[in-house]
């Protein structure tokens, strides 16, 4: 049981970890990673139940674990990618010291960040699950791989639901504080989301801006 206690204690630290995407915008008492996971799980359940041949139990587990690597790895945002030069290589040390920049990163910039981000997240996940029983460790890795690589419909759905929840939270903050570059976020959603149920929900989010 000791390994489970320490795993839950570590994952529990995400209840205190404010999301950088919001703190960069100067939002006080910003949403934490655990709160983000909470609403993502809800969205996966509420919209996933409309999908045919969908393994809901698996999808909800993927939603639960999708960001737990952030216990030890940084919570990178597209503003970090926007701060990377398009030309030349970037080192891990440079990534760790990036000064986020507002605006929309290009594919080249995103790819550069992704390479190092993945390396750091893999190390973090390894540390986090190190003492768990082998079968549980394997299950977490399998779910995480499905999310990261989008190799199953559940993994792809959660990956897109994660983006939609970010958009939803961003719009909520925009309505309250007006500090979020929401137009860029809506634009990005139209490039990244292809699930019809999630696209329908984005439509509702957009409509809520008219109210």
């Amino acid at each position: 049981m000791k390994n489970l206690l320490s795993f839950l204690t570590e994952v529990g630290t995400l209840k205190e970890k404010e999301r950088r995407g919001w703190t960069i915008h100067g939002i006080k008492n910003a949403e934490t990673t655990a709160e983000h996971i909470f609403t993502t799980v809800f969205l996966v359940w509420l919209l996933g139940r409309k999908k045919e041949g969908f393994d809901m139990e698996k999808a909800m587990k993927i939603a639960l674990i999708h960001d737990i690597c952030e216990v030890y790895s940084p919570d990178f945002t597209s503003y970090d990618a926007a701060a990377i030069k398009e030309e030349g290589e970037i080192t891990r040390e440079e990534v760790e010291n990036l000064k986020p920049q507002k605006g929309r990163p290009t594919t080249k910039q995103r790819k550069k960040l992704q390479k190092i981000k993945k390396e750091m997240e893999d190390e973090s996940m390894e540390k986090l699950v190190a003492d768990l029983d082998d079968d549980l460790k394997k299950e977490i890795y399998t779910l995480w791989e499905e999310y990261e690589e989008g190799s199953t419909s559940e993994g792809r759905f959660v990956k897109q639901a994660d983006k939609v929840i970010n958009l939803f939270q961003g719009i909520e903050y925009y309505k309250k504080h007006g500090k979020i570059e929401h137009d860029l976020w809506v634009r990005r959603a139209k490039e990244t989301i292809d699930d019809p149920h999630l696209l329908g929900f984005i439509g509702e989010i957009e409509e809520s801006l008219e109210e």
Partner: protein
Amino acid sequence: MGDKKYYLTKEGFEKIKSDYDKLRKEKKEKLKEVPEALHSEELNPEYLSFRRELGLLEEKISKLEEVLRNTEIIKSPSKNCKEVRLGATVTIEAGGQEDEFVLVGTMEADPVLGKISDESPVGRALLGAKEGDSVTISSRVKVVYKIKKVRYK
């Protein structure tokens, strides 16, 4: 209802085939070391753990089998084709910024790497457009994508 059709590039198909072969090999290896089912009069925890792991493997194998059975490999048109079709690398300009996307089927989409699904609003709008065209994504936020270049491998 028929099975869903998966449109994959040749590389995407080969990756899935290689993952599938790897999993089959892993399963074969696993089956060489089946623990005893019973430990005294109770089910052996090692055996239960083995069953769970085998179940996960079998599920992954069966999903990939379904994909491989229903895949249609995207055929690249001639290199001179200037129309956006599946597999095209498209240079666009939007909001004063140039960017590059590859248009792929939903299975291979990975927007962080610039691989945009043909079922996304932007993918749908780009599909069928030609070099020099502009397409507009109409919603509350209106964005115009100017297609500057279309190329195929």
